[in-house]
């Protein structure tokens, strides 16, 4: 009875904290908006500007929780009660326990073997420096998380506002025809901004890579992959400085990418060439200023001390501010406009195309929670706070980073073209 009272008290305390925090931040924004209205802005403009000036609301909320000790409290409460309840349930049904343990063991073994194989085959000696510090920005589109759904103006706003990434870059996928001495063929290319190679810490195998100056001057320059250099140019050591025709337009080859660097997609969708983003329009790469033309793949190197979760919270907040300022088109499957729903995802996970892995992991988690849940309602009668929190979290943008991974992910950089 005392434990039940403690749980209820803890839940009540947390709910009150969240309510007051929300109200306090709203009051801050309203006060700032009042000042801006006095300076001559309309109420709508003033509120929008006040929200932007406040910064990443969800990230600051999380910091407030940490500062108040509730971040730790939540973890300890959830973990210890899950553990206790699962233990009680398992000891009450030994046959079920044996079956559950066996199925989990088989599931985990298969997953581990698959993960090890994929990791061994696809990520051996990958050329990106500290690739675990690279995160890709995914966008929610009609219920799916997609890679490559950010418009040029949104990217500029994101780049200006964000603090989670030490360096952030955008690229667009295109499919040009490349003429080499032996043949002309269509292949996958990436039009990149000046920060692309620097963000990934990639160094050229030969020559140099695309930099800020190339993008600023819209130079017709080209970097080719090591495999293309070997297969189509016979590993010619004097290739730097030669001209290659891309969709009929001459580009100067300035460098060869290092071995094992093939862009942001996985092996089967490897990029073979890179050109400056600004040199792209005549090759089918859009630079549309329209916010409803989401065509950029955005990725960045996490700043020191920043995590994927923190970056997700910040992205969700920036996306929510942009949703207010520049609403997206209506969602045919729901009422009202679609939110940007930006989520950061580590590059390693994003590239693997490992929906199955994530779903298996989610199922394992679900099973564990279900084991605890059944007992929680049956024996103690306590509210299933942990599971309920997950359900609530799915409607909160800041929590998407944690919850949305179980949803389908489109790994096509050019997903919007298929529409």
């Amino acid at each position, binding site marked *: 009875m005392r434990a039940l009272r403690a749980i209820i008290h803890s839940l009540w305390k947390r709910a009150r904290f969240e309510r*007051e*925090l929300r*109200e*306090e*931040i709203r*009051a*801050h924004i*309203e*006060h*700032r908006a*009042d000042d801006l209205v006095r300076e001559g802005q309309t109420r709508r403009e003033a509120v929008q500007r006040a929200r932007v*000036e*406040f*910064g*990443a*609301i969800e*990230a*600051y909320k999380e*910091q*407030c929780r*940490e*500062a*108040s*000790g509730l971040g730790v409290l939540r973890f300890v409460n959830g973990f210890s009660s899950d553990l206790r309840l699962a233990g009680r349930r398992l000891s009450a049904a030994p046959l079920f326990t044996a079956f559950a343990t066996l199925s989990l063991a088989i599931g985990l073994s298969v997953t581990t073997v698959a993960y090890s194989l994929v990791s061994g085959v696809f990520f051996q000696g990958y050329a990106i420096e500290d690739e675990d510090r690279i995160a890709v920005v995914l966008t929610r589109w009609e219920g799916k998380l997609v890679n490559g759904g950010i418009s040029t103006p949104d990217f500029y706003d994101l780049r200006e506002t964000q*603090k989670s990434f030490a360096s952030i870059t955008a690229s667009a996928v295109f499919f040009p025809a490349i003429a080499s001495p032996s043949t002309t063929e269509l292949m996958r290319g990436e039009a990149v901004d000046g920060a692309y190679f620097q963000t990934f810490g990639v160094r050229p195998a030969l020559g140099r890579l695309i930099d800020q100056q190339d993008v600023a001057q819209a130079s017709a320059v080209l970097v080719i992959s090591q495999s293309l250099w070997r297969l189509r140019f016979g590993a010619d050591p004097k290739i730097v400085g030669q001209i290659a025709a891309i969709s009929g337009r001459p580009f100067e080859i300035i460098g060869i990418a290092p071995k094992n660097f093939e862009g942001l997609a996985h092996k089967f969708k490897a990029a073979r060439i890179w050109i400056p983003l600004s040199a792209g329009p005549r090759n089918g790469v859009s630079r549309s200023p329209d916010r409803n033309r989401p065509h950029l793949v955005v990725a960045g190197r996490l700043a020191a*001390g920043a995590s994927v979760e923190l970056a997700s919270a910040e992205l969700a907040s920036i996306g929510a501010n942009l949703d207010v300022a520049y609403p997206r088109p209506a969602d045919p499957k729901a009422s009202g406009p679609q939110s940007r729903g930006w989520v950061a995802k580590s590059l390693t996970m994003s590239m693997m195309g490992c929906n199955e892995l994530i779903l298996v992991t989610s199922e394992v988690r679900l099973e564990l929670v279900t084991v605890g849940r059944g007992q929680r309602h049956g024996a103690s009668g306590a509210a299933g706070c942990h599971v309920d929190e997950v359900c609530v979290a799915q409607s909160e943008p800041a929590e998407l980073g944690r919850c949305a991974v179980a949803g389908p992910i489109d790994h096509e950089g050019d997903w919007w073209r298929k529409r």
Partner: protein
Amino acid sequence: MADEQSGILPGTLDLLILKAVSLGQLHGYGILLRVQQMTGGSLTVEQGALYPALYRLDRQGLLDTEWGTSDNNRRAKFYKLTAAGRRRLREQTDGWNRMVGIMGSALNTRPGEV
């Protein structure tokens, strides 16, 4: 992290908040404006970064809070200094002044004085 974001020396944001609140109870936005007034606009605290610092000071028992109505007739959470907060402000102000004196004297040392 908040201090890094605002470009203020580590630890000084807390001191500025304590000083601002010592001049009269204020809500979050009021504290921000008071800090800007006190520093002549030289130091700009990023708005959102203020709140983690306020919650930390509240948790340490240096600030007390109560809900009230602001001059704009809006419901707001007001912060005021506790006895422990006043004591901490005094200690940190003394420490800061002492450090400024030491650094000032060190940086103004002439060759003949060494």
